[in-house]
């Protein structure tokens, strides 16, 4: 078991190192020099000397390898992600940290709701395969799963915000208001939009897992042993059916910090997803690089957790 954990940790470390390096290369192969881009907005004309001076101050004149790579890796390891172009002089880490709570609230809450509703519904549909609940849940889930969440988001805004006026469809706070209730009201529609798509995903996966388990030989054994349906479900089916579901849950948790880019864009939600869009539009490479690294790292950590959870649940992979 400890050997298994050691192997998983080592693999995660190597992956993270590769993600970081790839992240560096990715932004160097993008055409266009950031200093030229930054200075091109200036009202007075910029001389080549000025651009060169800017390049020197950012270290862009030095060779990519090893100077720039080593600089980048060592700075990253120290937690220094550099400074934003757009939000002048601000630390990338500060910018991301500032946006993180809103994203975690949005995606975390949506995940929580989706896991509880989607997994339960999916497991039940798979257990009673062919029943009324199965037909409705499977049909609806496939529809939700295949619908882009930004479209769902816009429909929700049109209905509940524009037409009915029940809930705000924009931002995180009403001007002047600063209460939890106000925040939750702003959270309602984005959370619903994200959660609906996730519910579809969880129902589809949980149902497939459960209906596989139901037709397994050991379920016949359990029935032959005289177990009641409830005992068969709880003692034999549940844990086996949860194996693929737990994998999906932990992998999805990796996206909690990355935010839901499209939904955040629709609702102008001040999260990491929104920051990503702003940084993209401004070619704010340091910020993008930071976000990408955060995303990569959280996916790697989520994979790590999935591996560990799987090892706990399934004795065959230990």
């Amino acid at each position, binding site marked *: 078991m400890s050997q298994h954990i050691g192997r998983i940790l080592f693999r995660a470390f190597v992956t993270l190192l590769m993600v970081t390096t790839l992240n560096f290369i990715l932004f160097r192969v993008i055409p266009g020099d950031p200093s030229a881009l930054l200075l091109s907005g200036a009202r007075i004309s910029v001389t080549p000397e000025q651009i060169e001076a800017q390049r020197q101050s950012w270290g862009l004149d030095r060779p990519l390898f090893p100077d720039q790579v080593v600089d980048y890796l060592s700075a990253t390891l120290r937690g220094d992600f550099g400074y934003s172009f757009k939000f002048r002089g601000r630390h990338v880490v500060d910018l991301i940290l500032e946006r993180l709570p809103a994203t975690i609230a949005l995606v975390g809450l949506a995940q929580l709701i989706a896991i509880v509703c989607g997994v339960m519904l999916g497991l039940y549909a798979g257990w009673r395969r062919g029943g009324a609940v199965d037909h409705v849940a499977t049909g609806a889930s496939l529809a939700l799963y295949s619908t882009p969440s930004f479209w769902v988001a816009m429909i929700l805004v049109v209905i509940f915000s524009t037409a009915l006026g029940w809930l705000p469809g924009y931002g995180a706070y009403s001007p002047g208001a600063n209460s939890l209730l106000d925040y939750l009201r702003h959270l309602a529609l984005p959370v619903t939009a994200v959660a609906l798509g996730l519910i579809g995903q969880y129902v589809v996966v949980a149902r497939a897992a459960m209906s596989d388990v139901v037709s397994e030989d050991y379920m016949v054994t359990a029935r032959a042993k005289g177990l009641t349906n409830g005992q068969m479900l709880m003692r034999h089916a549940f844990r*086996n059916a949860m194996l693929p579901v737990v994998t999906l849950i932990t992998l999805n948790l990796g996206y909690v910090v990355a935010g839901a880019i499209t939904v955040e864009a629709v609702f102008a939600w001040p999260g990491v997803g929104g920051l990503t869009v702003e940084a993209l539009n401004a070619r704010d490479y340091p910020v993008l690089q930071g976000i990408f690294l955060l995303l990569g790292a959280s996916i790697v950590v989520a994979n790590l957790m999935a591996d560990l959870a799987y090892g706990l649940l399934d004795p*065959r992979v230990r």
Partner: protein
Amino acid sequence: MTDFSKDNAPLLEVDRLSVDYSLKAVSARAIENVSFGLRAGEAVALVGESGSGKTTTAMAIAGLLSANALVSGGEVRYRGERLPIDDDAAMRPHRWSETSVVFQGAMNALNPVHRIIKQIAEPCRLKLRMSRGEATARARELLELVGIPADRGTAYPHELSGGMRQRVMIAMALACRPSIVIGDEPTTALDVITQAQILKLLGDLRSRLNLALILITHDLSVVAEACDRVMIMYSGRIVEDGTVGEIFAKPKHPYTKLLIDSIPNPAKGKRMIRPIPGDPPNLVSRPSGCAFHPRCPSAMAVCTTEVPSLDPLGCGRVACHLHQSLTQEDKIAAHA
């Protein structure tokens, strides 16, 4: 009923049992008019090709018919009492404590995520209402009984060999002290040596615990080794029933003859498998009369129209017009 034992009443009586499976539009009769008795401690084999109804017969006895199965006639009695085999919930208390099943443990019949000791102890906890400690002690006892050191109980199924898993399956089957154990092809997927060990174990346990054994198989060598009596099934009916010695030495039904002939026996110069010509019948639209007549080398006119009844013959039973009081006409037809 068709019981021909005089000394003691049968433990289990299957009386004119018919089971249908409803498929999408049609309904297929899996077994028809199956009757036999089983005495305590007796070992009977149900032999037949795929689709002959041997598994359906056994699953009906164990009360494990699937949801799309319909008992369309007859009944099963255990110690003279009718079993509610068509009622899943009512059948539950009978399961495992009267009749247990040894599934193909080598495959996936054990739950991969639980330790074997827990799976063996489970019926003791749930059916015999034992405490956790008592159930574990009983499970350790059962493991030793089937020749596995009790300390191996902490293993998971995937950590055991196929033969060991089959032993675990047998230990589990004995948990509630049943009087009948059904072996559903218990040695399929095992190598020949392990097969022999498992059969020996079943034989030993049978005499030690006075178990009645129903062995479902298509392997006649397994039958010869482990059983007293054989019932040959074809297309949902028992076509011949007799002692092992009788069936192997003097098979009466043409199907049984061909079946025994098909076994290669290098000692007698029979190196090749001799297949029975033709295909197994379709269960949705069976041939009229005797279902075997299209493949039967001795088919007569009457075979195409009338279903032969399973009549006593010698110390067994056979369902074949050849062995019934024949009319002169049929005899002529048979010789023609």
